[in-house]
């Protein structure tokens, strides 16, 4: 990865992972959830970024993180439902939260 690529939005994977975990950070704080894998996930992220510097993505770390993201997605979905519930209590209009992508997360079917 270099600064030009960063600017040109070519690093879709890294950017997506970063923003996914931005939502996840908010989700675990809103729900007050414990995540025992935080150190492991941060370590995987570091390995992926390092592999980008070397010019070849670390597929093993990337696959591991991708598998963890499946469960984390359920937490984000749960947090959005909680935010909606709190907003209803506050009488706050969600406005732009109701975009197709937000709906996709909110109504995602989560396996038990």
């Amino acid at each position: 990865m270099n600064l030009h690529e960063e600017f040109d939005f070519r690093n879709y994977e890294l950017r997506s992972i970063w923003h996914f975990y931005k939502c996840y950070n908010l989700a675990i704080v809103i729900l007050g959830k414990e995540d025992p894998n935080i150190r492991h996930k941060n370590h995987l992220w570091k390995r992926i970024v390092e592999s980008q510097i070397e010019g070849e993505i670390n597929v093993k770390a990337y696959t591991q993180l991708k598998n963890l993201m499946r469960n984390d997605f359920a937490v984000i979905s749960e947090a959005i439902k909680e935010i909606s519930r709190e907003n209803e209590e506050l009488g706050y209009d969600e406005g732009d939260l109701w975009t197709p992508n937000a709906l996709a997360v909110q109504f995602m079917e989560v396996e038990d």
Partner: protein
Amino acid sequence: MPKNLISSPPSIYQLYLRKLGAFGSSIFGNDLYFLKEFVDLGIQDFGEERVIEMLKNDNSPNSKRCKEIAENWDDVKRDFRIFDIRLTRAKGFYDKIEKKDFSKINDKDVEEFMGYSKRISFIKEDIYTLAIFLIRNSPLQKQTIPSEAWKVLEHSGLKKLESGNKTPQPLNTESSGGEN
């Protein structure tokens, strides 16, 4: 919801909302820098002693983490200082990217940038805990971020966010994924 919300002057609210807007709309990894600024502003505005006391008495779903932060406040502050140095140095490179100023960037700069970037954890509970805590304990929770605060997105050449309330549209499952 807390009953006694901490209110601030309107000008401070504008600053809060701008920081939150920049955090929410940044497409680069510098979003954490704006969140850190938001938290710093909140701590200074509320008062450090008051924040510690409020964290101890927090009864939100995240109260366990809030109490841990209050008990280890000095350690958390030290971590934040180190974190702040990394964020600030990485932010300098992002500023050059946003200004499309590539002429002064060489390989050594890129190496330095990546060196700081890889040390910034992508799951950082403490800073998010404090940010949500500050929002939950102030009238900010009922305020809408003004559209002009979504500065970063608009300056990056992406289309302006639509303002106003929209009626929920039927979900199109075929086109809803893979737009990152």
